[in-house]
């Protein structure tokens, strides 16, 4: 059971990982946004399963938080509002592949996918569908074939350092807290 292997690995590297159903998501999101007093949430809008994005967007707005997303330009490309992104307290991303072998979340780059939302805010919440768990890194990389994105990033736990007296400390440059909520059941 690769999902169990993933759960053990991810917890081992300090990810707060949970399985929940879509109907629980509203309540949990409201609690998280409230707890963080998140005034601004970085939320890329591309690549999500529609029902999941709708729930997230509605709930974040209901909590009174502003959202920062890559904007569509006239030429069809995307751009971030850098200062607004820099001040977001929470980043919420959709993670379309996570790796059991290493406990990693995979984030390919692409127009509108906004992977910086998983890096700049102090808290990062990744949402996934249970079916998107992959056994290992090699197999996942092979899925791309020759068509590899410009930036392919794997996130395995919080930002951390042992550079002062080898004392493990989190939240160096990236998020100090990484949550991964895996949505069970079929909703797409």
């Amino acid at each position, binding site marked *: 059971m690769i999902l169990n292997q993933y759960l053990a*690995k991810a917890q081992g*590297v300090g990810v707060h990982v949970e399985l929940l159903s879509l109907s629980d998501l509203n309540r949990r999101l409201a609690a998280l946004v409230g707890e963080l007093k998140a005034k601004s949430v970085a939320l890329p809008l591309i690549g999500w399963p529609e029902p999941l994005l709708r729930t997230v967007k509605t709930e974040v707005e209901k909590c009174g938080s502003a959202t920062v997303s*890559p904007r569509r330009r006239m030429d*069809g*490309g*995307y*751009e*971030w509002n*850098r200062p607004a992104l*820099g001040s977001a307290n929470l980043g919420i991303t959709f993670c379309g592949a996570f790796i059991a*072998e*290493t*406990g*990693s979340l995979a984030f390919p*780059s*692409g*127009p*509108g996918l*906004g*992977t*910086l939302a998983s*890096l700049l805010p102090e808290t990062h919440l990744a949402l996934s569908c249970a079916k998107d768990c992959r056994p*290992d*890194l*090699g197999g996942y*990389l*092979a899925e791309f074939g*020759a068509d*590899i*994105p*410009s*930036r*392919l*990033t*794997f*996130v*395995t*736990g*919080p*930002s*951390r*350092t*042992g*550079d*002062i*007296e*080898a*004392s493990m*400390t989190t*939240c*160096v*440059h*990236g*998020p100090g807290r990484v949550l991964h909520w895996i949505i069970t059941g079929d909703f797409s």
Partner: protein
Amino acid sequence: MSPIVPNFRKASREAVRNSQVIAAVRKTANLLSGMMALAVANTPDFEALRNYGRTRKLEISGDLEKYAQSFAANAQAAGAVVHRAKDAAEAARLAIKIAADNGAKTAVKGKSMTAEEVELNEALEAAGVTVTETDLGEFIIQLANEKPSHIMAPAIHRSRAQVAELFTDRLGTPPDLSVEALVAAARKELREKFLAADMGITGGNFAIADTGAIVLLSNEGNIRMATTLPRIQLAVVGIDKIIPEMADMPKFLALLARSAAGQTISSYLSIVTGPRRAGEEEGPEQLHIILLDNGRSRIAKGPYREILHCLHCGACLSHCPVYRAVGGHAYQAVYPGPMGSVLSPLISGLEIYADLPNACTLCGRCAEVCPVCVPLPDYLRDLRSDVNKPPLMMKMAAFGAHTPSLYRLGMIAMRQMLKKGVKGLMAPALKEWTVCREPPEPQAGESFRDWWKTRSHGQ
């Protein structure tokens, strides 16, 4: 290039007296080696992985130029600009030109030993580019105006109290901050630099020939920032970092992450293939890759070829009794410890680093822990022979040892001399040996040879 003439003997004598540095080095080295042992124990096929690593690396070092050309072609096809630098000076000139062509005045940099080898910061600063180190350990030593003392843990020699004092002095933080508060202060200071920098500078843990990708590991997230936020990215990569295929990467990563810090994978793994593409909101407009040779092709053709297999994990440093006793600075080289004692003389010249092959007890721990089985003790011993033409006295001793009658006379003379103590004529000849140990006193009574003679006659 360095104005100091390295003198390991002198520097190590001073280093062993600095108990604070040695305590700090030992503490971290113990933790790192403990974490590695645990990670290896939890990987049942680790030996098979090591063998794979060594075999694959032998194929690569046997044909470095083929893989370098293949990498360069594929990276260019992905939109990167690839530059080849034959030595450190050429790499520095290229970096200065890239910055100047793009009007880059500020740069954020991830930890890179290859950049240290090139003295990239010094070169860019001289050309008017402000370079900020963003790996916490590198940031600390940049503030302190020091060099790294470990290839993975550059500030291993500094205590928390010293870092706190340094931050108070240089950044104006309150005195005696905890590790957490120091990290938070660095986050705040460096975040502004990341968002404002024109250029991001990194090394590369692996370069993948078949896709032209650069693979970068980091735990702090600074490498992700440096490869995503600035408009220009520069990666300085030694040609020894090239591996043939993307399919090789997870295996080398497994070896590196376990050996470097006892991890299965680092917190962040970035696979960078070309610059930002059409429509993307992130990534640099230009990606420049400097492929550095600096003696590597020459080393690949010589008897020490396997040193190019090194993954730069630092395990041999943390496990080395000499490194643990003297710390990294005593080596006065970019690469310290066992791998450095081989690589530094090969890159910079054996005449400059003649002492380093002797900075070794030949205990063999480095070869035991090396994730790609580099025969470090063999290389260190062979390098000693390259340095030392046997002195006349040793040649005479060898002749004596081969001639039974001379050997007998020599032993009789030696016993007499040792009974009287090493004085007079003998003292200068044995000075090297007696400087840190007492000459032995011969056992009382008859010699072994006399005893053996009576014993065999008696039976």
